[in-house]
């Protein structure tokens, strides 16, 4: 088999040599024979004649030889292709329309496929990545769907779960890396010793962390990424044992990671120990996750997620007796969930991507239907020619392969051009911010995509060939010769088929339009949601107090007060404040709070609230609305006043009929001694913390900064300056107080809100683009079908006009055809739109899947577009000059 293939390839590679060699060989034979005849006494001319005669037909021998070499199919294919090229070139308008239609439809599909491939299909670039799982604690009844994992969990689960080969913790962060004085913030990851083994990787040089390095006293070690090692240590193996400075402290390099190692989307330069204190490992700290650290585990070969989940549940059950909060947490619905890592990472974006791929696919269907219609019109024009050829002996297989060669040639060109469209589409998707999606950086225009394009093009070519081949072969040649004559009326079945396709096309476009409308309205509704604060003219940046200058909460507070005072005095700044977390920061951890004296109702559990430590004029700077009492001020932190502010959701949950002011609450999930209580001094309007489409109104509590200290905080500045100028003012103020510090991620609140809408805006925009293309295709399709119908019936129209029909009657005849097609399409489209709406529920926001306004709007747009497409052919029909039309025959 292999030998024959090689022989075939050799011949194909030098086809011209093969042909000339064969001719020479056969001629040599005939001449040798003639020579022999001459030698036996035959005169030379007679000898040559006899030699040729006895050899037989040279061409048929050559044909036999070619066939023996396996060349028959190739020659046949070549002939078909040449014929197809010639016939396509004869109709440039058709060919261009077809190729552009295909290019747009295939290009749209390839673009979305590239995104889906990168995000949903490709396994993580880690060994046996299907066995990686993540674990997180959930307290659904407390309104906390996801709370990460705690350090205590790690020490409790570790080596107790047989289904796991290894288990580890990691925590993404940023640190000031480099010599003291550097202010460059680099992404870093804190990890436990088994982290790399869990991922199936090890250090390229040196070693990974040890258990002994997991305490605060012994964590002065670091592992370098390959990139950092090459840049800062010039790929010198003697880097092991050298020092790197992290947040002002020296760390000893113990290992270097292999090139190409990266975990999820983090670009971490440095890996540091995820160290903890003995207290953090006790059962009392089990529920202190707060989405700070994440748990990662590798399943043993053969073990399933379900087994792991059962073992985790059993372990949690066994640990209950050591857990002081076990009862409260059980009431909150506490569980530790085991979820495959990849699925967990892409869970939020998956429905949107699938909706988009379906949209692209519907677009492709519209394109195919359009093309089949155009091809059918073309086939009708050629049916006589093909009938004649069939009558003269062309086989059915021959007709079929000729049709397939033509359609495949079209789809291949369309596919190639579609690749170019996809290259542009991938650019567009990147511009829309796709790289911010999980694994979005992997979206690429590569060989895999090209392969998919070619495969899709070939499949499409065959799909398109089927109805056209059927059209040619369905009739007996004799019937074909009689029907659809130029002068007669169109063959019934062909016409029904064409009109059926127009109906299908209108229906599909209707579905696509309503789908895009739903996405667009969802986006609009999301944008209309008030975030609860005034995001205009506000800039926020993040500061990490690092180094030895800030050993205590007091020293941190002193820095904050100097910074806020300084900012307040800057011209163009109206207010400035600090908060440990701000809305739209991407950090959405909740903490429990307990109202003093509150007795849980049956079925009620401790609740998690967004909890903030604030200083300066944070509320004024962010633009909160005060509902009752007063805002917190910088003085509250200085005085150590045990006061707090809650939001409306919190207040109305506990005191639906009275005022919240004067009531007291505790941090944590239990009642505590009197002196730890915070008195509520103000109620502010609720804000959206995680995103505009955040529907749960769980409540929030604001404490003075000193009562909720975090060395990592946000500075918020409001002013009349342009956001960029405000950012510069902020940066300058920070540097003036401490040149070693810098504010990072400085962004206006408007921009942060904008960025949070990316998973709605981009799909809505793409949906709009798909719809526009679909409309264009419907217009082309309807115009083409109507024009053809008019052209087919010229003679009939001419006769009717000659007999006295008025132009309006003729026009009405064609417009009523258009209306019938449109009505059929809409009816089918309604069913499709209903199904599509059902399937899209997950990505909709504040809009019903069957919004009458959207359905009506889509119907109006399609009706207008297809009517516009009908007017020209209908007018042409009405204005027909009977003399001229009849004279043409």
């Amino acid at each position, binding site marked *: 088999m292999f030998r024959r293939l090689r022989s075939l390839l050799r011949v194909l590679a030098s086809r011209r040599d093969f042909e000339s*060699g064969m001719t020479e*060989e056969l001629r*040599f034979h005939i001449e040798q024979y003639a020579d022999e005849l001459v030698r036996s006494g035959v005169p030379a001319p007679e000898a040559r004649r006899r030699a040729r005669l006895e050899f037989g037909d040279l061409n048929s021998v050559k044909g*036999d030889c070619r066939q023996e070499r396996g060349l028959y199919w190739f020659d046949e294919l070549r002939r078909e292709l040449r014929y197809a090229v010639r016939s396509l070139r004869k109709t440039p308008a058709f060919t261009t329309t077809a190729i552009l239609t295909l290019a747009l439809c295939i290009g749209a599909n390839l673009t979305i496929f590239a995104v889906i491939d990168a995000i949903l299909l490709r396994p993580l670039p880690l060994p046996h990545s299907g066995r990686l799982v993540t674990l997180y604690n959930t307290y659904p009844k407390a309104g906390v769907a996801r709370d990460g994992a705690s350090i205590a969990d790690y020490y409790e689960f570790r080596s107790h779960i047989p289904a796991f080969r290894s288990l580890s913790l990691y925590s993404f962060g940023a640190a000031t890396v480099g010599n003291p004085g550097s202010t460059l913030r680099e992404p870093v990851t804190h990890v436990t010793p088994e982290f790399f083994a869990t991922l199936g990787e090890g250090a390229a040089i040196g070693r990974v962390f040890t258990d002994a390095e997991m305490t605060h006293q012994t964590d002065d070690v670091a592992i370098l990424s390959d990139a950092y090692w090459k840049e800062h240590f010039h790929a010198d193996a003697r880097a092991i044992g050298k020092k790197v400075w992290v947040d002002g402290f020296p760390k000893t390099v113990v290992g270097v990671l292999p090139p190409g190692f990266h975990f999820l989307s983090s670009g971490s330069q440095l890996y540091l120990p995820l160290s903890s204190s003995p207290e953090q490992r006790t059962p009392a700290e089990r529920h202190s996750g707060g989405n700070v650290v994440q748990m990662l585990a590798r399943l043993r070969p053969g073990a399933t997620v379900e087994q792991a989940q059962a073992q985790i549940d059993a372990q949690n059950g066994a640990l209950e007796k050591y857990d002081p909060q076990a009862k409260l947490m059980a009431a909150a619905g506490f569980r530790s969930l085991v979820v495959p890592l990849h699925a967990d990472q892409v869970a939020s974006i998956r429905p949107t991507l699938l909706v988009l791929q379906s949209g692209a696919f519907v677009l492709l269907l519209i394109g195919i239907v359009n093309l089949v219609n155009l091809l059918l019109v073309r086939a009708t024009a050629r049916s006589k020619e093909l009938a004649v050829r069939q009558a003269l002996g062309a086989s059915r297989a021959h007709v079929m392969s000729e049709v397939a060669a033509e359609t495949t040639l079209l789809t291949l060109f369309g596919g190639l051009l579609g690749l170019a469209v996809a290259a542009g589409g991938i650019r567009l998707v990147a511009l829309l911010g796709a790289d911010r999606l999980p694994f979005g950086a992997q979206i690429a225009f590569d060989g895999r995509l090209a392969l998919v394009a070619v495969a899709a093009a070939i499949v499409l070519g065959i799909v398109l060939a089927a109805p056209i081949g059927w059209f040619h072969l369905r009739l007996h040649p004799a019937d074909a010769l009689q029907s659809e004559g130029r002068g007669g009326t169109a063959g019934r079945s062909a016409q029904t088929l064409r009109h059926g396709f127009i109906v299908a096309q209108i229906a599909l476009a209707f579905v696509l339009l309503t789908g895009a409308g739903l996405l667009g309205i969802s986006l609009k509704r999301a944008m209309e949601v008030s975030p609860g604060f005034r995001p205009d003219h506000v800039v926020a940046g993040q500061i990490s107090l690092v180094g030895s200058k800030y050993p205590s909460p007091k020293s941190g507070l002193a820095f904050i007060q100097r910074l806020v005072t300084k900012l307040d005095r800057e011209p163009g700044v109206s207010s400035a404040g600090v908060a440990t977390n701000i809305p739209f920061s991407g950090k959405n951890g909740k903490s429990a709070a307990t109202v003093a004296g509150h007795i849980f109702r049956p079925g009620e559990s401790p609740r998690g609230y967004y909890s903030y430590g604030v200083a300066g004029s944070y509320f004024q700077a962010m633009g909160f609305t005060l509902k009752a009492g007063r805002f917190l001020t910088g003085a509250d932190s200085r005085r150590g006043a045990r006061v707090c502010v809650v939001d409306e959701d919190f207040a109305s949950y506990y005191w639906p009929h009275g005022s919240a002011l004067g009531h007291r609450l505790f941090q944590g999930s239990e009642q505590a001694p009197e002196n730890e209580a915070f008195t509520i001094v103000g109620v502010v309007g609720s804000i959206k913390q995680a995103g505009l489409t955040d529907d749960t109104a769980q409540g929030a509590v604001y404490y003075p900064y000193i009562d909720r200290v975090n060395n990592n905080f946000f500075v918020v500045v409001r002013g009349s300056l342009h956001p960029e100028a405000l950012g510069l003012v902020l940066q300058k103020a920070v540097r003036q107080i401490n040149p070693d510090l810098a504010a990072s991620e400085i962004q206006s609140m408007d921009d942060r809100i904008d960025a949070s809408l990316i998973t709605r805006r981009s799909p809505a925009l793409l949906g709009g683009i798909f719809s526009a293309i679909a409309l264009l295709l419907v217009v082309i399709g309807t115009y083409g079908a109507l024009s053809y119908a008019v052209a087919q019936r010229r003679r009939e129209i001419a006769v009717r006009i000659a007999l006295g029909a008025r132009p309006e009657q003729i026009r009405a005849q064609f417009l009523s055809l258009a209306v019938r097609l449109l009505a059929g399409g809409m009816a089918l489209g309604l069913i499709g739109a209903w199904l599509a709406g059902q399937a899209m529920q997950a990505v909709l926001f504040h809009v019903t899947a069957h919004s009458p306004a959207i359905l009506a709007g889509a119907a109006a747009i399609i009706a207008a577009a297809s009517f516009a497409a009908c007017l020209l052919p209908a007018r042409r029909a009405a204005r027909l000059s009977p003399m001229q039309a009849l004279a043409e025959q």
Partner: protein
Amino acid sequence: MRNTADLLPGTLDMLILKAVSLKPLHGYGVLLRIRQISGDALEIPQGSLYPALYRLEHQGLIAAEWGQSENNRRAKYYTLTAAGRRRLREETAGWNRLASAIAAALNTTSEEV
């Protein structure tokens, strides 16, 4: 009585292999050689010789190379490959078995039944 026999189907390939196994030959030479070694009894139809040669080459049983003919002209010479040699051996053995079986069957007399 005719002194040439028609070729049995399937025997042409075997004869070509045998002919080129003796010495590399060009197409016309194969024709002459078969005529010669069969004592002028077998006549190859000229039109079917070349397709057979191309088929055998395609199957890798013979190999072709351009060379000089006796009268100094460019000609394509065929030689037997290792695979061709194996095939010839098998076909020869098979043919001999068949021929002796048929001969035995045809020589049977009424007394032997």
